[in-house]
C-alpha cells in the first residue's frame, strides 16, 4: 500500500505573520530570530515593559553575558520595524488553524483582532521561595535565592563581604539540575567576594547537566564546604544558628551564619493553564505546556503551528532555552515558507452532506486541526491534520474518510481472507503504524512464531479502529480480533491508544450482550521494536481461541 498519494496535493496560501506570547528573554530572542527570517511578528507581553526588568533575575540569574544580551535584545527588538511590540496585552482567543489563525488581543486600548499564521509561546518560570518549609521567615539575614541574585547583581553586593553564608538546597523539594545550577553559580559568585565563607547544606546534589560537576568542584576548590545530610538541619527560627549531625565526623555541629540563602522551587508560569485552554494545547506535568511524549520533539505542541519554547515547556537553563529559540525559528520557516505551501488533499475528507455538525470531531481532534467557518460545517485543516483518524472513528454519521484508510478500504481488508487453509483460526489484528505494525514486520523478518491465518490491518493510529470494524470483523468470520496500540503516553496523537482501549472495553460489553465470548477480543500495547511482544500477543490469542473453538460464523 502506498503512503499518501502525492499527486493529490494542492498549493494553498497561508498567512505568515507570527504571534509571540511573552516578552521575556526567550520571547524577545524568538521574535528577533523570526523577524530576521523575514516574517512579521506581533510580540505581546502582559507586563508594562519587555525584557522582564521588573524581575530581572528570575530566569537569567547572575549570568552577566545573558544580562548584556538581554539589554541588547530589548534595544534590537524596539528598533526592528518587523516586530510589533504590544505591552499590557493578553491573548483572549485564538480560532482557526496554522496558516490561518484569528487571534483576539486585549490591549490597554481595547480589543484587537489579527490574522496570523503561527504562534510561539514563551512564558517564564516563576520562583517560589521555600523558606516556609525550613520554618523561616524572610529577613535581612534570611534570603531567597532570587534576593541573593538581586543583591549580587547590584551595587551593594559588597554588603556581603566578610560574611558567613549558608545555602540550603534539596531538603524542601526533590529539585532538579537547574535549581542546582542556580545554587552553584551563586556559591561561586559569593566566593569571589572578599572574605566570604560559604557552606552548602544539601539534601541532594543534582549535577546531571552540562558543567555542573565542574562548577561543584570549582566551588569546593575555592573554599565552599558542603554538608550532605539525610534530613533537614535544625535552624533556629531567627536563622541565626544551624545545628546538625556531620555525617563524616559523626559529631553534632553548630554553625552561626550571617546570612542563610534558601532554595526556590521553579514553577511553570501561572498563565499557562489559561493559555493552554485558549490555544487548545495539552498541559504536561507541573503545568508546563508539553506532555511527556516521545513524539513531541523540542518546541512542538500537540498542535501544528503552535510552538512552546524555553520555560513554557520545561524547566530549562539558558543554553537549552536558546536552543529552543533556534528550533522554533527553524520550525516556523519550515511551516510558513514563503506563504505558499503544498498540502495533501485527501488526508481527511469530510462529506458535508452527511455531516450533522455535532462537533464530535472538533472536540476529539488531538491536533486541534478541525474548526468551523461561517458555512457552519466543520473544516479539517490539511496543514494541521495528522491523518490519525480519531475523528473518523467517532463520527456518528461516518462522514469523515481518511486518505488510504477509508472505511471501504478497511472493510475490504476485513473481508479478505487471504490464502490460509480453511481450518486455521482466523485472527484480525488492527495495528497502529507507529508501533504494532512495525513490530509485526519485525516478527516476520525474524521468523518469529505467528498464527497461520493472521491478518494484519495497518491503521494510522489505534484511535482509527472504529467500534464497527471490531464488530464487523467477527461477522466477517474472524475467530479473534486484536487491537494493537502504542504504549500509554507514547501515542503520536496523544490519546489514540486510550480511545482504542476504551473502545475495546465497550466492544467487550457488546460481545457479552450478544453471547459471543469476549475473550475473542484483545487489546495490547507495543513499541515498534517489540517483535517478540507482537509474536507472543498473537500466539496468546490463538491459544485462547483454540480453547474456544471456531466462531459461529465459521461453522
Amino acid at each position, binding site marked *: 500500500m502506498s503512503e499518501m498519494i502525492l499527486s493529490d496535493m494542492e498549493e494553498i496560501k497561508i498567512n505568515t505573520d507570527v504571534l509571540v506570547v511573552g516578552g521575556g528573554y526567550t520571547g524577545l530572542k524568538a521574535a528577533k530570530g523570526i523577524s530576521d527570517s523575514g516574517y512579521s511578528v506581533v510580540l505581546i507581553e502582559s507586563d508594562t515593559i519587555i525584557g522582564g526588568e521588573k524581575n530581572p533575575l528570575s530566569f537569567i540569574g547572575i549570568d552577566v553575558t545573558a544580562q548584556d544580551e538581554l539589554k541588547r535584545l530589548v534595544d534590537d527588538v524596539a528598533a526592528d520595524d518587523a516586530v510589533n511590540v504590544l505591552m499590557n496585552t493578553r491573548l483572549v482567543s485564538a480560532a482557526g488553524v496554522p496558516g490561518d489563525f484569528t487571534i483576539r488581543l486585549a490591549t490597554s486600548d481595547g480589543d484587537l483582532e489579527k490574522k496570523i499564521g503561527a504562534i510561539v509561546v514563551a512564558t517564564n518560570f516563576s520562583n517560589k521561595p521555600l523558606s516556609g518549609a525550613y520554618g523561616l521567615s524572610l529577613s535581612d539575614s534570611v534570603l531567597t535565592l532570587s534576593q541573593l541574585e538581586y543583591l549580587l547583581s547590584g551595587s551593594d553586593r559588597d554588603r556581603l563581604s566578610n560574611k558567613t553564608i549558608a545555602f540550603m538546597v534539596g531538603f524542601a523539594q526533590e529539585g532538579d539540575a537547574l535549581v542546582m545550577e542556580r545554587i552553584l553559580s551563586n556559591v561561586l559568585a559569593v566566593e569571589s567576594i572578599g572574605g566570604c565563607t560559604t557552606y552548602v547544606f544539601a539534601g541532594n546534589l543534582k549535577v546531571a547537566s552540562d558543567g555542573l560537576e565542574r562548577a561543584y568542584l570549582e566551588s569546593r576548590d575555592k573554599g565552599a564546604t558542603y554538608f550532605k545530610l539525610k534530613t533537614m538541619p535544625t535552624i533556629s527560627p531567627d536563622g541565626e544558628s544551624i545545628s546538625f549531625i556531620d555525617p563524616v565526623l559523626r559529631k553534632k555541629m553548630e554553625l552561626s551564619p550571617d546570612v542563610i540563602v534558601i532554595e526556590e522551587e521553579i514553577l511553570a508560569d501561572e498563565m499557562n493553564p489559561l493559555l493552554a485552554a485558549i490555544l487548545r494545547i495539552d498541559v504536561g506535568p507541573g503545568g508546563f505546556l508539553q506532555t511527556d511524549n516521545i513524539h513531541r520533539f523540542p518546541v512542538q505542541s500537540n498542535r501544528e503551528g503552535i510552538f512552546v519554547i524555553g520555560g513554557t515547556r520545561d524547566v530549562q537553563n539558558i543554553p537549552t532555552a536558546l536552543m529552543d529559540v533556534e528550533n522554533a525559528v527553524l520550525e516556523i520557516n519550515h511551516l510558513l515558507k514563503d506563504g505558499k505551501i503544498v498540502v495533501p488533499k485527501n488526508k481527511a475528507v469530510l462529506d458535508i452532506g*452527511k455531516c450533522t455538525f455535532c462537533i464530535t470531531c472538533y472536540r476529539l481532534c488531538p491536533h486541534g486541526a478541525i474548526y468551523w467557518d461561517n458555512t457552519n460545517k466543520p473544516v479539517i485543516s490539511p496543514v494541521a491534520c495528522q491523518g490519525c483518524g480519531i475523528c473518523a472513528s467517532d463520527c456518528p*454519521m461516518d462522514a469523515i474518510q481518511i486518505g488510504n484508510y477509508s472505511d471501504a478500504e478497511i472493510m475490504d481488508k476485513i473481508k479478505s481472507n487471504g490464502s490460509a487453509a480453511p481450518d486455521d483460526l482466523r485472527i484480525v489484528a488492527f495495528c497502529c503504524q507507529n508501533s504494532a505494525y512495525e513490530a509485526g514486520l519485525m516478527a516476520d523478518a525474524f521468523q518469529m512464531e505467528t498464527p497461520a491465518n493472521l491478518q494484519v490491518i495497518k491503521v494510522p493510529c489505534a484511535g482509527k479502529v472504529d467500534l464497527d470494524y471490531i464488530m464487523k470483523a467477527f461477522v466477517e468470520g474472524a475467530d479473534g480480533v486484536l487491537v494493537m496500540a502504542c504504549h500509554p503516553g507514547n501515542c503520536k496523537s496523544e490519546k489514540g491508544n486510550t480511545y482504542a482501549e476504551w473502545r475495546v472495553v465497550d466492544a467487550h460489553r457488546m460481545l457479552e*450482550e450478544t453471547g*459471543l465470548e469476549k475473550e475473542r477480543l484483545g487489546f495490547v500495547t507495543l513499541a515498534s521494536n517489540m517483535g517478540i511482544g507482537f509474536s507472543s500477543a498473537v500466539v496468546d490469542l490463538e491459544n485462547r481461541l483454540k480453547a474456544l473453538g471456531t466462531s459461529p460464523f465459521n461453522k
Partner: protein
Amino acid sequence: MIVAERKPFEEIKALVKDFNRVLTVGCGTCVAVCLAGGEKEVGILNTELTIARKVDGNPIELGGVTVERQCDMEFLDELDGMIDQYDALISLACGAGIQFLAERFPDKPVLPGVNTTFIGANRDVGWYEEKCRACGNCCLGLTGGICPVTMCAKSLFNGPCGGTNHESCEISPDQPCAWHMIYERLSKQNRLDSIIEIFPPNDWLNTTPRTIVQPAYKERKAAR
C-alpha cells in the same frame, strides 16, 4: 436538542425475536448528534444483532439506512420501496420520529431502538445534561437563565422550599438547589428583585398532546 439513549440490547433483541428480516432506520439529526441513533449506531446495532442471532442459531437479515430527520414526513419518502423486503422496522429516532415512521408505514411493526430521555445540552463528547422539561411557559427571564422546572426536584416556580440545604437540595447533597443557583446568578447580576416576583401557576393541563402552529403559518394550516 432531544437526547436519547440506546435501549438495552436484551430489550431490542426481545423486540425483534419473531422477525427475520428487519430494517434499522437511523435519524441524522438530534439522535445522531447525541451519538445514539446516527449512521454509526445503526451499523453497530445491526452487527450486534447479527452476532447475537448467529450465536443463537437463528440468523437474522438486517438492513440499515439513516434518513435526515424522521420527524419530517418528506424525508421518510426515501424508504418507499425498501420497506417491502422487511418484516419489521427498528427506529433509532426520538419518540416523535418513531411515531412518524409508524404513521408513514402503518402496515409494518415499528420498534423503538432508543429511549427518548430529555431535552438537554451537550457538555462534552457523549455527555448530556437535562435542561428543559418543555413545560410550555418559560420563566427563564426571571430566574437568571436557570430552569427551576427542570433543576428543582419539586419543579417550583417560586422557590426555594424549606428543603434547601446550604447549596444542595434535600434529596441529595450532590443535587444542587436550583433556587440557590438562581439566587447566586441573580445576585451577581444585581437582579435580586426578580426573585421576589411571583410567577403564576403553570397550566399543567397543557400536558395533553400539544400542537403549535407558528403565527406566520396559521393561514397555511387553515387552508389545508
